[in-house]
């Protein structure tokens, strides 16, 4: 992409900062989801959809996506600036995460002209909500083994099977669907195809899953002779694995192109300092305990390392010993870190650790307890931490397959 005018970026950033200060809602009287995987009620969904639309209309989402498809047509630095402000201001999250982060960049990078025209604007404006259909009940991390069938019948495909952990499945208009078109292919991967499948369709049923937090946000999706137009196929039959792997690279941050805006509100590790000062252990502020201090320092050191890792990845001479190491390692290290951070936060609360969201005695209204339980969605979803270790062990360290 061409260079950009620094002055213009400065003005854009100032305008964005002012806009978010002015427009970020603060008086919401219900609990907002901290991540896109926690949208459990219509009230939450409608609120976040309106918010994303408003941000998009103001020009702070997809600012760097091509103008002809609904983006802002600017340099990526503009969107990065807006995204940073959103994180700093702790604005509500962007709702349409699968569309913004995975489907959108995938379409821009390898979609047909028709597909780009048809889908990209709706992704940005949140008019069309996207979900992902990769995992199946019997094959959580083993995506290559997906059994959902797609059988061609004239100018349609007939879909049968079931997908699980469909984020916002009950709200979604489209699914990026990995399905088996050829069970007799020479290997399991070559039998898979990739679809941009409509969800508001007969034969598609979504059943909400109650999460370990007691809330909703995911569904199981059942396809029973669901007919979708044949032109929903992305690329060619048999390319499903390839396209799915590319999609996972966006998901794991190994490939860029995401629309921007934050889709998860992670606890800032310095937030935990506030908690450590406030929470009491044995009658004293937890932060006065030397053991607590040491653990806190270790966590804050680790938080800095995660930020430094992604910056170092862009400094070529410091990232070439083992190519892809930092990019492929970031999901594992960050999801694992946030889990331990939340668990540590609970451990600072003495008997209050026992309380949960909704009780007046709960610390910070129970966000740490809820955050800890929710953190497993990230260490399990998108390839469990154990699968990540296989991937890194094999692709980065060159160890033999397990």
């Amino acid at each position, binding site marked *: 992409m061409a260079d950009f005018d620094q002055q213009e970026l400065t003005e854009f950033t100032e305008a964005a900062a002012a806009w978010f200060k002015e427009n970020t809602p603060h008086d919401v009287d219900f609990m907002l989801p901290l991540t896109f995987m926690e949208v459990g009620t219509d009230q939450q969904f409608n609120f976040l959809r309106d918010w994303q639309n408003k941000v998009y209309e103001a020009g702070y989402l997809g600012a760097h996506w091509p103008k002809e498809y609904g983006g802002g047509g600017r340099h990526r630095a503009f969107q990065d600036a807006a995204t940073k402000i959103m994180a700093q201001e702790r604005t509500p999250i962007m709702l349409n995460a699968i569309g913004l982060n995975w489907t959108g960049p995938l379409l821009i990078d390898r979609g047909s002209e028709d597909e780009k025209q048809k889908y990209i604007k709706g992704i940005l404006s949140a008019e069309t909500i996207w979900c992902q259909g990769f995992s199946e009940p019997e094959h959580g991390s083993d995506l290559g083994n997906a059994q959902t069938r797609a059988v061609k019948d004239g100018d349609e495909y007939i879909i049968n099977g079931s997908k699980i952990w469909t984020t916002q499945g009950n709200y979604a208009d489209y699914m990026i669907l990995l399905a088996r078109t050829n069970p007799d292919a020479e290997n399991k991967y070559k039998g898979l195809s990739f679809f941009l499948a409509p969800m508001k369709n007969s034969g598609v049923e979504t059943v909400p899953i109650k999460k370990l937090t007691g809330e909703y946000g995911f569904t199981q999706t059942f396809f029973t002779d669901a007919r979708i137009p044949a032109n929903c196929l992305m690329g060619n039959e048999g390319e499903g694995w390839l396209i799915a792997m590319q999609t996972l690279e966006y998901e794991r941050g190994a490939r860029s192109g995401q629309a921007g805006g934050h889709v998860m509100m992670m606890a*800032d590790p*310095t937030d935990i*300092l506030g908690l450590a000062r406030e929470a009491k252990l044995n009658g004293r502020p937890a*932060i006065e305990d*030397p053991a607590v*201090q*040491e653990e*806190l*320092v*270790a966590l*804050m*050191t*680790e938080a*800095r*390392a*995660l*930020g*430094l*890792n992604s*910056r*170092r990845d862009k*400094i070529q*001479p*410091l990232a070439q*010993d*083992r190519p892809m*190491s*930092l990019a492929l*390692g970031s999901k*594992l*290290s960050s999801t694992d870190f946030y889990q331990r951070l939340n668990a540590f936060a609970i451990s600072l609360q003495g008997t209050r650790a026992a309380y949960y969201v909704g009780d007046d005695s709960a610390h910070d209204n129970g966000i740490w307890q809820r955050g800890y339980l929710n953190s497993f969605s990230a260490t399990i979803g998108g390839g469990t931490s*154990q699968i990540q*270790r*296989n991937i*890194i*062990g*094999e692709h*980065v*360290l*060159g*160890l*033999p*397959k*397990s």
Partner: protein
Amino acid sequence: MSALDNARMAPRIGLSEEQAQLLDIAESFCRDKSPVDKVRALIEEEGGFDDAVWREIAELGWLGIGVPENYGGIGLGMGELVPLVEHMGRSLMNTPFVPTVLAAQALLRGGSEAQKEEFLPKLAAGSAASLAVCEDHADWNLENLTAAATRRNGKLVLSGKKYLVLHAAASDIVLASVALDGQAALIIIPADALEGRMTREKIIDDTQRAYALDLDGMALDEDHLLPMEMAADTLAHIEQMASLLLAADMCGGAFACIDYTLDYLKTRKQFGKLIGSYQSLKHTMVDAHQLYEKARSHLYSAAHVFGEQGEGEMAVHMAKAEAGEAFSFAADRAIQFHGGFGFTYDCDAQLYRRRAIMGCALHGDTRYHRRKIAELMF
């Protein structure tokens, strides 16, 4: 700005053009000059390093990197030394390089103009030097001093002992910390004054050389004393510099040790399978690698912001804490994953593990540096 504000700020990292070049040069130099059979051969020699390699290092100008041009150096900073020491760590190379550059930097920081003019050009050109800052109390606090100097008949008369003086036998000068009038002081001891006062210590890292120095009754002229008003600041600077370079050495060691273990895991078979295909080993290697990557990010961040008040200090503490942890874990698992072979002296895993212990023992281990961060932060 408080340390807490620093913690909130996005940490910075960068690489100068000089650092990038040195990274390249150091990689091939250290690989060529310090293959592991040579490292093992040097263990058997009294001096513990190859004089020819030491002279080459001097000729490459590396000893003058941090020395200003008017004292015969190149005038770059501590950050430029990091890539060199990192690759020395990867190759288990051992020369008086680190003690010499630390002594030179300490003189630059706390020496008088006359002392700088006399010694810095020599140290930049290949005269070895060392620091004598450790004592029998085993305390990492460099201001805890029992060795002392008193003024008698126009001379400074020393008492006490210093320990873990690296490469003292090869050094032309040793910079020693002593208490003088109840305050910290640094004093230059020339090699001839050390004759008969040096005992080689049996240290855990066989590739290194350390000596105990007996200072009792040593008499030196007043002009050997560094200006007193800078001594405490110089000691603090020594801790920062030494920690940064030890972090570099340990990061390099962690990388090499992981690499060494991976080679074994890719070739050794048990129960009919390459042992690297077993997840208990594979996943642990990934954990070791991830720790190493985090430590390396901290290392180059610390190199980038070195010398900045607050932020620079915190970054160094983090770099040393994390490098020590990463190297210790990787080397500990390296021994274990080599199985029976790992228990032998022939396996290189022990070389790494011993070097990791040594690296943590000098200028503070992980817990010590985390405590320092806590003091800055809370």
